[in-house]
């Protein structure tokens, strides 16, 4: 046999999130990769499937007082407080570099009201170089007593509709895991026209310093991320993938190619790498290479072949 025949070819890593085509399924999670420039010396940005930028609001936000982060067992708590430069400075200061990254740029948006989300979607639709919006619905609805949009199906649906109405960009809605039944939320958002879902956002947690009897975070509670949350995220992705037909981006504790593959098998079309960017800036590229290696080992020519490929039963 000709030796050249046995040299494995590069598997096809391309995936599509509805109308959003990606060169590979590996993206960065919002809030863990800044505006990409922060990692430009450490990661070949043009290798990434996409970058999801730090969440943007209409006006700049100062964020919470310190301490804002606390390390936990195989994870971390954060209460950054959605600090960001605001949409105007994002467009003027951050977009010029983002346009040069050579990968898909997804802008995460957040607001206090449905009108905020709609206005952001409108602003950003007119900006060149943005490939999609990701809607963070884990924020409190100020007009509804601070209940998070992402915890009430009718509010999540209303935000989704409002954003869709203002933009022709693909709309990804990022689900909160801090709900009784994430499938109910996923269905409400999917039926309201979302092009894709990303899940999960952080799990609300808390840390206490027994010695001082004080909370570890100035905000008292914060979002838990990192490897510790992976089993919860994987379960939720699997449940949602079984219930909705729009594509899913799996997020939660992904640090290795094996982690990412587990999410793809559970039904995710793509993944976002979050906290791993902090402890291993090379994680995203290693995961892309590792997925390709896995596909070769498994004799698959395309990553599409393993999406939802979880084997159940005997």
């Amino acid at each position, binding site marked *: 046999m000709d030796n050249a025949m046995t040299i494995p070819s590069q598997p096809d890593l391309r995936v599509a999130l509805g109308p959003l085509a990606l060169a590979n399924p590996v993206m960065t999670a919002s809030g863990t990769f800044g505006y990409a420039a922060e990692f430009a010396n450490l990661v070949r940005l043009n290798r990434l499937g996409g970058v999801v930028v730090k969440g943007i609001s209409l006006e700049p936000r100062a964020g919470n007082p*310190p301490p804002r*982060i606390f390390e936990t067992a195989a994870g971390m708590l954060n209460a*950054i407080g959605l600090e960001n430069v605001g949409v105007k400075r994002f467009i003027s200061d951050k977009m010029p570099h983002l346009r040069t990254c050579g990968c898909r740029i997804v802008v995460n948006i957040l607001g206090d009201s449905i009108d905020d989300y709609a206005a952001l979607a409108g602003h950003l639709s007119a900006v060149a170089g943005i490939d999609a919006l990701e809607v963070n619905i884990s924020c409190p609805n100020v007009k509804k007593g601070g209940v998070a949009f992402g915890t009430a199906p009718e509010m999540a649906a209303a935000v989704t509709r409002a954003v869709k109405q203002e933009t022709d960009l693909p709309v990804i809605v990022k689900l909160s895991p801090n709900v009784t039944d994430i499938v109910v939320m996923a269905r409400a958002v999917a039926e309201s026209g979302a092009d894709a879902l990303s899940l999960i956002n952080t799990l609300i947690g808390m840390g206490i310093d027994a010695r001082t009897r004080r909370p570890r975070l100035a905000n008292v509670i914060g979002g838990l991320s990192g*490897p510790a949350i992976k089993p919860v995220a994987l379960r939720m992705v699997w449940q949602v993938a079984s219930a909705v037909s729009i594509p899913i981006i799996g997020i939660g504790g992904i640090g290795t190619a094996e982690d990412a593959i587990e999410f793809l098998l559970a039904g995710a079309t793509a993944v976002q790498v979050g906290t791993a960017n*902090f402890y291993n800036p090379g994680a995203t590229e290693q995961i892309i290479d590792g997925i390709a290696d896995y596909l070769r080992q498994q004799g698959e020519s395309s990553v599409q072949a393993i999406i939802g490929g979880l084997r159940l039963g005997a």
Partner: protein
Amino acid sequence: MPEHQEKSIVLSIERLSPSVYRLTLHAPLIAGEARPGQFAMVACGSTLDPLLRRPISIHQCSGDGRLQLVVKVVGRGTQLLSEIRAGQTLDLLGPLGRGFRLSPGPVALIGGGIGIAPLLFLAQSLMQTGQADASCRVLLGAQSGEDLAPLAAGFETLGCHVELATDDGSLGRHGLITDLLPAHLPNLGKVYVCGPHPMMAAVAALCASAQVDCEVSLEAHMACGLGACLGCAAPGADGRYKHVCKHGPVFKAEEMAWTTR
């Protein structure tokens, strides 16, 4: 100023005091570019717990690619770092942050406890570039002589004038190092300080009233060291948060709010 993720090789580890260790690493990429006051994010092990790197200031660099870090054991991550052995690798990210801005003239370096570590690199740079001379004052303090002596070694051979103070009086003056500053202030053009927050606040206040420039090196919990996690916020004088990793760790004292913490 590019950052590098570098697998360094541990050349040696020395115990300087019961809880302080000095690591000598071969890390040519980072050592070749580091400036005084910058830091590295150091992976504490290869497992997922503890998860995050630890920010450690750069103690000394040499032209042959050697990099020294001084680590004080304060928790599990630094405990693991103290247990590393020669020949093992240590994953570093660096050099990170904005270091000291060196300027010529009569200066004082003030260090407290483990905060003394980055000042040796600063003193070397100041003396070797001729920006400071034998009038360079180095005021160092710690809890006890056992803690202070190993950290204070090295400054005198550079030609600096060293004064010491300890909380328990076992070495140098019995009391706070900040008590020694007012006598020098009229003759100083600039003060560099790294140490516990109350000490830096006291030095900043003394310098402000004497109208002497002061740079402080802050410490904060941080996840990435790259300006992405935004975990290391410290309140600025303008009412906005600064990020210790990127805007600092070295700040002009007047940039920071000293009363709210």
